[in-house]
């Protein structure tokens, strides 16, 4: 069990070059939203904290999607 756990860190996982690889941004955005709200909220109440983290996470995700769409559009226009 322990050996298998350590072995997981000795070789990289496979990540392709398709759109699925973009999903790896979500854990990162979640971590950024959680730590940012942890440091910025004056008083940490769980319900309010979770609500604000979800709002920030949704905002970041929305902005990233918008950036993806715009950049793909620019690439498509430049290459077509």
């Amino acid at each position, binding site marked *: 069990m322990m050996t298998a756990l350590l072995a*997981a*860190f*000795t*070789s*990289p*996982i*496979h*990540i*392709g*070059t398709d759109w699925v*690889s973009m999903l*790896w941004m979500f*854990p*990162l955005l979640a*971590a*950024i939203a*959680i*730590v*940012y709200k*942890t*440091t910025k909220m*004056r*008083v*940490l*109440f*769980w*319900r*309010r904290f979770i609500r604000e983290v979800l709002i920030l996470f949704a905002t970041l995700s929305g902005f990233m999607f918008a950036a993806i769409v715009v950049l793909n559009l620019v690439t498509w226009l430049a290459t077509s």
Partner: protein
Amino acid sequence: MKAIRDSVDFVLFLAIVGLAAWVIPGAGHLLIRENKRAVIICMTVVGLFVTGLYIGSLAVLEPVQTAWYIFAGQMLTTPAVGMLTDYAQKGDYFVAGRPADIGLIYTIIAGLLNLLCISNAVYMAYTGRGRLIGEDDA
């Protein structure tokens, strides 16, 4: 004389809070009795760093061939990264392509988020903010 000693003690306390926050993510907040923040920060920063290592393997800890600021970013997570890097250098680990990029991004962001937490812990200690008492809203 007492005022000077108090001032020196206070600066020393701030330094200890900052150092503790670097050594163990969240420990700085624990020292100023912000237990909830400490647990959240520790789990998130360490979790993000470990996820980065899982994605790119120990090979993402490569201070020789990567730029110095990348390793500096990783080192901000905790000084233990230095020991882990030393261990990784003795192994024959290799990573390239997307896993290398994503693994590096995860580990660097973990370090930078911990830098934010270090400064926040020192600031909260400086302003004298400990745990505030209140009720959770419905």
